[in-house]
Structures are given as C-alpha cells and as structure tokens.
C-alpha cells in the first residue's frame, strides 16, 4: 500500500523524525518499505500566478506570451504548453531564482527573441509525476503570489509498504500513524474531527431510507447515512493530486471522498445514488443462485448463493465488499446519497472475490478483517463530513445501524516473563506495557501478568503469543542477541534414502556424467512418446498448470533428460553425458470409501492423520526416487579421436553405479518390448535385483531409432533409468580373506553359438571348476571370416587358486580340462 508521509504527519503530533527515519523504522518493525518516491523534493520559489492576458509569440506559432499576475505586478512569461488557461486561470510560475526538483535554478532566458523571466510549470517539472501534457492548472480559488508548493502539498514522500495479510489496520494511514506512535515515543495521534453539526438537515435518516439485514453472519454490521442536496463535481486539485500520488484515480468529489476515507481509516465505504435504489431500501442478503448484476466496471456477473449481495427492494445493487453496481453509481445527476459503512465477514468476501477474480481495494481489506466498531462509525462520519464540505450537501440526522451481535474487544493475559523466555533477552514489563498501549491496547497489572484488552481494529491479536510478537517487533529484533541453542538428545533419525541418492550421485559423477535437474511437470505427449505399457503411460495431471507443456507429473525421468539432450544438441553441444536423480509420480488406485483412511498410509509416505483422507478417497501418489542418465556423442579425450559411444558405455556406467552403491545380486538380461519400448529391440537390457524373488530395478539401452528420429537426435543415444529404492538397502561392506598362495591363469579361446549369452558360459565355468577364483572375458569377436557362420569367438581368462596351498601345474591343468569338457558338453564349444 502507498502512504503519504505528509498525511501521516497530519495525523500525528510530536513526530520529530525525517522521512527516511520513518521508512527505516517501519521496515524494522515489519511494515516493509519496498519503495520511496520523493515528490517535489528541492522545490522552492514557485508561486501561484493568475493569467491576465495571452498573445502569440511573434516568431513561433507554438509559443504563447502570457501576462501573469503575482499579487503585486504583471509580468510577461513565454510558455510552450498548448493549455494556457484563459485570463483569470491560475497556474504555477517558477520565477528566476526558483529551484525545481531536477536541480535547475531558473534564470531569465531568451526564448526566440523574447525574454522570459522563468516558466510556467507542468506536473513533471514540479516533481509530481510523469505528466508533461501541459502546464498544471490550479483551482480558481488559489491566491496569486501564494507558495504553490505548500498549496500542492509538496514536498512529500510516498512510501510503498508491503503490508502482511495479518495487518488490515495498516491498510490505512491512521493505522500506520498509530504504528509510528509505538516506534517513536513522543508521537501521539491527533483526534480526528467527526463533528457533523454544521451540515445536519432537519429530518432523520430513518425517514429517507430503510436497511434490512438478513444475513448477519455475512454482514455483522451495516450502517447507512443519507446526504441530501449533493452537487457532484470535481475534487479540488490538492485532493486529486493526493489520490493520484497514492495510486487512486480521481473520479468525482463523492467517490473521491469515499476513497479518501478508505485511505485514511482503512475502512472501505460505498456511496449509492439513493434515488436509484428501488424503495429507497437496502437489503443485505445472500444472493439467489444465478442472480445477475452489472458491476461498476461494466461487466455483467452472475452471483451464487454463497455471495453476499447488497440489494434494493428489487435486485442486487452491489456485491458486498467487492464492487458496487453500475445502476446505482453516483454520477453528475446524483443529488441524494446513501453512504454505506459496514463490516463484512472476511472469508465470505474472499471466496466471492476469488471466484469472480475481482480483487478490489475494498475486498482486499474486508478479506483481511476490518474493524466492526470504530472503523465502521468513524469512517462513516469522516466521509459524510468530507462530502458535505466539498459538495455543500446536508446530512440527514443519525445513521441507520444494524449490528445485532456487537463484537467486543478481546481480553488477553500476557506474562511478561514468557516474552523474555521466548525471546532469550530481557524486556522490562513496563516496556512491554508501553509498547502494547501505544498500539492501542489497554493494559492493567504491575507485577506479574498483564491483562490486555485488544481493540477490534487488531483482529490478528487473539492469543498471548500474538502480543509477544508485538512486543518483540516494536522492541526491535536487532536488539535480540545471537546465541546457539543448547544441545540435548538426538534431533532425528538418519535418512537412508537421501544417503543412497547422494552415493548414486557421487558414483555417476565419478563416472564422468554431469548432473542435471528438470521440472517435475512436463508435456503429456513427452510421456506418451516413450510408449510405456504400464501405469507410467497415465500420468497425474495438474488442475491449474501454468502451461500445457507443464501439465503432467512425470512418471519417468527419461523425458526430461531427452529434452535436456535436445537442448544441448540445439546449442551445438554434441557430446552429452547427463544424469538426474529425482522423484517420479505414479497413480495409486483410488481406495474404496470405507477404508480410505487406511489406504492413505499404504506404502511410501504415510498420511498419518486420518483427517487428511477421510471422505476424499484420494491416496497420495506413489512417489519413486529414480536415477537416470543419457549419453550421446563420442567418448571423451583428445589424444585418440573419440570413438562413438555404444551399448557397452551405458552398461559400464550402470555397472559402475552398482559397484559404488554395493547392490548385490543384480542380473542383466535382454529386455522385452513391454519393459522398454523406447529402446532399440536388440540393444536393451533389464536389470533385476534379488530380493524376495526378482525385482525389476530398471532398464538400459540404445534409444529406439524411431524415437530418436521423432526427437531430432541425429547420433545414437543411450539411456538408463533405475529405481533408487533398493539402493538404500545396500549390502554392508565386510572385509574378505586375502589370498596367501599364488594362483595360476589359463586362457581359453573357442567358437560357440552366437546366441548363447556370455553370462551363461561364465556360470558354467564356475559350476564346473573346483579351483576357479575369477573368470574374465577378454574378447568377443564375430567378424565373418574370423568365425564360422552363426558363431562367435570368445576369449576367456580363468584364474585358479587354492586358499591353503600352492597349486601344481597338474592340478590346474586337470581342473581346466574339467571346465573345457563341461563347456563342450553344454554348449558344443569348438576349440580348434
């Protein structure tokens, strides 16, 4: 909210502080000043001048020679503005010696051959705003020779306050001024005049209008005053300028008065044209479903039964607390006004404003909570007075006041020692009482607890802790020391899943991949492109995505990684090795209503509190931490030109990851189309881990050429995605025996049917041998000419060792022969 420091000063006595000090203290007390605009700073020597006569400049069509009168004499000034008023009009004259906010001191200056002693000023030249459409025209009652800066309320500082939602009282100057009385001891609020006597008319208000309050829950209090003989006109220039500097458009003096009232007390007001209200009646009730109203902005809107409507005898004339209706709008023809000042229930106003997307100055304040007592009455009195002052209206006696259940100030007990214990610093009880009193509370009690009465303009203060906060922030957070908490007990349990994720991160880092992060919401078609055949094809959708391409919760990390791959390729980065560790989301089946509470706690994270699920039947999704990677381009290095990556690279990465994370019992096998439809059919593997039967851990492979083509990825790309859950149950590391006796190696080379997996042969070697320590494959070659058709050549290196003795050559040869016999028998290997 914007506040004028001049206005604050008008509301206060005894405030001896500069504008900057005021801004700094407000920020330090929680009313953050986000911007400071100085209006008319440095302005001096500008006066009101009356236009006496105007002539065209002899040498320039667009210049005017203006005779201006300063109360003593008439002087000719050259003016370039198109809007010089007729004789009698009042303008602002910066005479030689005057200083403008832009730093210029005026001197007599020749303009196209005519000497001009100073200039007539536009708004921007006065530091009032950006407007340079013409010179500023003053009200006709301005006295020639008077100080124009004072007349225009300059200089002033406009503070842009970030008012937190708990402080509706600070959405008006009065509340901010009250805050200053707490922050600057010595400053006191001036009493605001609410005397209507000079303008009161004969008849009582009850003869002119009626108010029926049907919905006291939505509207705890409704008051109305009536003003008669209104002549709607323009507000005086200083009022218009003040509204403008506070970001409010001046409309007419009646509407401007309600806006000034809102800016002063923070309490919204609304003026109806009484003669446009059917039956001169106000009925406050729930709207009927579908009931239409055309609001001030010209939009026709349909109301619902939850909306609170201000109606006349026939139809809604305003959406309570949100926006008035066009039909009863105050306009030039208005002569009688019904002035509404009411207290509406915040949540109702909030729901209506949200539903209609109509967030007005009024709704913003009612939502946060207005003052049902002084706020309602004082702002009504002040506004009626203002309208009477500026329009010459008379005010009907009394007000209609519907307030069936008055809301009393709240009593709260504050234990001053509790404040000190919570803050960790001493604040004397008398200082605590002083702070609360200056904020408008009444406090009783010397020793021990303070009995405090909270005025109704502070709906945010309902508990002792709220008062402690008031004391703390006014006392000053900067006066609280910095200490370290004493250590007791253990703060929480270790998180194996987080640790496993970090181990995986380190492993992939060591394997040369770069970590990336992508959004958890992606385009549904990016998921569809992978052709999943399980639940992953049906992602959870957002109700209110920012855009369509961020509307589905990812069921796999691969779409995001492929997007990152595309991003890099499009920027000329051809060698890509990325990994991501992140959460994927899968639907859980909706549980039957009867057991919905239980379903919430099943698997993953538990929704411990039954309140969260009952009656909704919506289980939390299955959130899975996954690790995935994508590789494309060439192997690193410059000494030998990098070879293109192949399947073994991605498999090597996955093996490295498994080694680092010590997951035992993993098995690779060729993957099926259902498991990895997005991979090349001959170049894909599934990884399983033994735990209560085989569990799928993930897949790896070369990207399917068709998918690659669709994504515009030219070179082969390889990817993997694994479930991280098994990583957090990694096998403990235990030292094994170190061999004490030398072993012996035998190499074995043979042809075998190309379809037999290496793992099967390795397993057969281990089975057949009594002495084998390790088996390594050294070569797999298939070039035609080197091998018979349908065969492949394999070279194995087998190491034999005994734990308790040095093996003899004869022993090793015998065992190796056993191995070869077994391979011949099982796989018909050909050792020629």
């Amino acid at each position: 909210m914007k506040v004028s420091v001049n206005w604050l000063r008008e509301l206060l006595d005894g405030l001896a502080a500069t504008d900057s000090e005021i801004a700094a203290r407000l920020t330090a007390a929680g009313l953050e000043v986000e911007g400071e605009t100085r209006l008319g700073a440095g302005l001096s020597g500008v006066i009101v001048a009356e236009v006496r006569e105007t002539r065209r400049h002899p040498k320039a069509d667009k210049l005017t020679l203006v005779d201006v009168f300063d109360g003593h004499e008439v002087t000719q000034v050259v003016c370039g503005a198109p809007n010089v008023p007729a004789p009698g009009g009042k303008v602002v004259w910066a005479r030689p010696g005057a200083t403008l906010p832009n730093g210029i001191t005026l001197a007599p200056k020749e303009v196209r051959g005519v000497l001009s002693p100073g200039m007539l000023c536009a708004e921007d030249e006065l530091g009032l705003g950006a407007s340079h459409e013409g010179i500023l025209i003053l009200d006709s009652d301005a006295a020639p020779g008077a100080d124009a800066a004072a007349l225009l309320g300059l200089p002033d500082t406009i503070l842009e306050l970030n008012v937190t939602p708990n402080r509706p009282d600070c959405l008006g100057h009065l509340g901010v001024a009250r805050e200053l009385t707490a922050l600057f001891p010595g400053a006191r609020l001036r009493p605001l005049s609410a005397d209507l006597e000079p303008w009161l008319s004969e008849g009582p208000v009850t003869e002119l209008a009626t108010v029926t309050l049907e919905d006291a829950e939505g509207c705890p209090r409704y008051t109305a005053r009536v003003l008669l003989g209104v002549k709607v006109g323009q507000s005086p220039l200083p009022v218009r300028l003040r509204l403008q500097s506070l970001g409010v458009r001046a409309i007419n003096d009646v509407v401007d008065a309600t806006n000034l009232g809102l800016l002063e007390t923070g309490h919204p007001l609304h003026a109806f044209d009484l003669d446009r209200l059917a039956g001169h009646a106000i009925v406050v009730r729930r709207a009927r479903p579908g009931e239409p109203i055309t609001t001030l902005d010209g939009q026709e809107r349909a109301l619902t039964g939850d909306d609170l409507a201000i109606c006349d005898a026939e139809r809604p004339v305003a959406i309570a607390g949100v926006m008035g209706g066009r039909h009863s709008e105050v306009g030039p023809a208005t002569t009688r006004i019904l002035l509404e000042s009411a207290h509406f229930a915040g949540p109702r106003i909030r729901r209506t404003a949200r539903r209609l997307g109509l967030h007005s100055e009024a709704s913003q304040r009612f939502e946060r909570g207005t003052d049902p007592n002084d706020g309602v009455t004082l702002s009504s009195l002040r506004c009626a007075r203002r309208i009477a002052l500026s329009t010459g209206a008379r005010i009907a006696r009394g007000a209609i006041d519907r307030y069936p259940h008055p809301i009393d100030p709240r009593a709260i007990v504050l234990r001053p020692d509790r404040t000190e214990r919570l803050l960790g610093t001493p604040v004397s009880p008398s200082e605590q009482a002083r702070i609360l009193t200056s904020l408008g509370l009444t406090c009783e009690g010397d020793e021990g607890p303070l009995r405090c009465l909270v005025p109704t303009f502070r709906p945010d203060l309902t508990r002792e802790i709220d008062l402690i906060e008031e004391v703390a922030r006014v006392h000053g957070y900067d006066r609280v020391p910095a200490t370290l908490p004493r250590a007791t007990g253990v703060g929480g349990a270790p998180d194996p899943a987080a640790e496993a994720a970090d181990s995986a991160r380190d492993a992939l880092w060591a394997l040369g991949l770069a970590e990336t992060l992508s959004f958890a919401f992606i385009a549904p078609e990016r998921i569809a492109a992978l052709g999943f055949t399980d639940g992953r094809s049906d992602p959870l959708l957002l109700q209110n995505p920012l855009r369509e391409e961020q509307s589905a919760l990812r069921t796999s990390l691969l779409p995001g990684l492929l997007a990152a791959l595309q991003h890099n390729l499009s920027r000329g980065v051809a060698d890509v090795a990325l990994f991501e560790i992140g959460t994927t989301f899968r639907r859980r089946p909706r549980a039957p209503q009867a057991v919905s509470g239980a379903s919430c706690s099943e698997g993953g994270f538990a929704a411990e509190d039954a309140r969260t699920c009952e009656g909704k039947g919506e289980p939390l999704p299955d959130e899975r931490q996954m690790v995935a990677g994508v590789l494309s381009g060439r192997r690193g290095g410059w000494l030998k030109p990098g070879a293109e990556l192949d399947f073994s690279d991605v498999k090597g990465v996955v093996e490295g990851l498994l080694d680092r994370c010590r997951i035992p019992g993993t098995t690779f096998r060729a993957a099926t189309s259902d498991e990895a439809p997005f991979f090349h059919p001959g170049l894909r593997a599934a990884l399983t881990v033994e735990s209560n039967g085989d569990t799928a851990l993930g897949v790896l492979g070369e990207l399917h050429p068709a998918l690659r083509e669709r994504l515009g990825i030219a070179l082969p790309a390889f990817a993997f995605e694994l479930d991280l859950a098994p990583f957090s149950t990694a096998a403990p590391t235990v030292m094994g025996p170190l061999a004490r006796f030398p072993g012996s190696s035998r190499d074995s080379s043979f042809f075998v049917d190309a379809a037999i997996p290496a793992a099967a042969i390795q397993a057969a070697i281990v089975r057949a041998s009594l002495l084998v320590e390790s088996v390594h494959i050294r070569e797999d070659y298939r070039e035609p000419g080197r091998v018979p058709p349908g065969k492949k050549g394999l070279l194995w290196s087998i190491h034999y060792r005994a734990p308790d003795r040095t093996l003899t050559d004869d022993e090793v040869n015998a065992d190796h022969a056993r191995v070869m016999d077994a391979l011949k028998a099982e796989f018909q290997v050909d050792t020629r």
Partner: protein
Amino acid sequence: MPQAPEPEKLDVVALVDTAERELAAAATEQALREVHARYGGREGAIKRAVQAAINAAPKDRKREVGQVGNAALQRIEGAFEARLRSLGDEARTRDLARTVDVTLPGRSHRPGHLHPITHARRAIERIFAQLGFTLATGPQVETDFHNFEALAMPPDHPARDMQDTFYLANSDLLLRTHTSPVQIRTMLAQRPPVRVICPGTVYRRDDDPTHSPMFHQVEGLLVDEQVTFADLKGVLLHFARAFFGPATTVRLRPSFFPFTEPSAEFDLSCVFCAGAGCRTCKNTGWIEVGGAGMVDPEVFRHVDYDSERYTGFAFGFGIDRMAMLKYRISDIRLLYEGDHRLLEQFP
C-alpha cells in the same frame, strides 16, 4: 732366427680385435649382450679358439698359449663392462633429455559434474549437521492438511494467497509449496527434542526471471525446552557465515507467516557489495533470502506438543537462491535446462 708367430695365437688376437670392435659398436644393451655371448664366456668363440690353440700347441707351449687366451678373455670382459656402462649412461642421458609440453591437456579420466544445487544443498546439509540437525524428507504431492491446515492456514485464510499453489486434477491433493509439511510429518512421528532440516523440491505457480515454478528449499526445525528467538538468530548467523564467509551478517525483520510467531524475514548482508549497495540488493546492502520464526503454538496443537513446555524455531530459504548468490548465477531458469556448458563449470 726370429721366431715366427704361432698361427693359433694370430687367430685369437684377430678374434679379440673383432670382438672389441663389435662390442664398442653395439647400440643397445641387448645387442651388446648378444655380441658378448658370441665371443666371451665359457661357450664363446674366443674360448673355443683358445682351447683349439692349446690343443694344437706343443706340450711345452700349452701353458703359454693358455695365458694368452685368458688375457684375451679378460680384455673382452673389460670391454663388455665398459660398453655396458657407457650404454647405461647414454640411456640415462637420453631419458633425461625427454620433455613434454605441460600445457597440453591431460589424458581424459575425468569425473563428471554435480549440479550447483547439489553443491549448495550439500554445503547447507554439512553446516547444519555440525549443529546436530539431521535430515528429514517427505512427499512432494501433499494433502491440504499437511501443507496448509496444520500450519495454521485454514481454508480461506488470506495467507494462502502468498503461495500460489498447483493442484492435481480431480483431487484435493496439491504440489507442496514449501517443505513445511515435512516438519509436520516429523513432529507427528516423534516427540521433542526435534532438530531436523528438510531439503526438497517445492512448487509455486510463479514464473518470471527470478521465480521458477519448481525450486528447492531447505527448512529447519528445532523444538526443545528453552529454545529462544535469540537461538534462531544465532543458528542463522552461524549458517550464513559458514556458507558465505565470516564477514557475512544477518538481519531479521518482523514479518508474517501463519505458522511462526514471532515471524521474521531473514536478510543477508549483500554478498556482492558487502553491504555498500549495488544493483542486486537494490542499494539496500541487504538481500532477502528466507523466512523464520518461533513455531506458532497453533502448529504445536496440531501435532500434540505442549507449547507451555516446548518452544521451537523454524526457518526456510531457497537452495536455488543460495546457489545463485554463491556461484553468481544470473537466471534461475538456467538451473533447469541441463545445459552442459553451465554444468561443466561446476566440479
């Protein structure tokens, strides 16, 4: 009458000359050893020639011929040793003459790169671990209860406007707007003392150069007897200095969060201008990084903690923002593009 040289003696001398020439000419140790094996030693040509000469010599001269032969063998051994030494010296000289252009890149066996957010998160976790905070995590799709209601934000509470929320279609579930639900889950699951930090991914319906709809946050929670606002200040100050350097200062400004009271905005002295004022800090010398405060008794009520016995503080800030400040990253969107050129700048 001059004595004619014995033919056998001539043979040996010529052989020795040849052997000496060949030994001196051997260019490698291997060649040298081959020459040596050919002429010297028990099986060599010289030994054989000497033996043949002895055999052929008259009895009275056998001794003399033998002596000549031994002298020849000794000469060969000497020549061999000398050449071996000189070859070794040459090899050492050659070895020491090798040079390399140390400015060429090394052979690539390099590790990859961790994301700047990972670097920042780990640094944050380490600092708080030293203060005894353990890690807590929770789901990203949350219930209204954990994300709002238990944090003293009932439906229609104005504070809900402060965090624009993504909702799941056809459901009451939402993407968590902060990691505070993890605090709630932690407090529902254990009794005080609680001392946890909750790093994680959060979502807000915001999208501009300084806000990303997905970002990372870390929140801390400490609940115990006698926890004070001064302790909160001390912990944040310790963190800021450990993370950004010992000259960093912290400012707490009163603010409003429904789940803490008193509440504070948490500002750091500007890391770019050290408080002097610059564009990043809008000339204030301070950078707003997070929120903090004492846990509101209303939150304790929801998790059934006795707010008369226990007090606590909570704080939260963006990991992305910390990473951007620490590593001078200009645009938050760069963090989520997977651009190798950015990632490669981080170890």
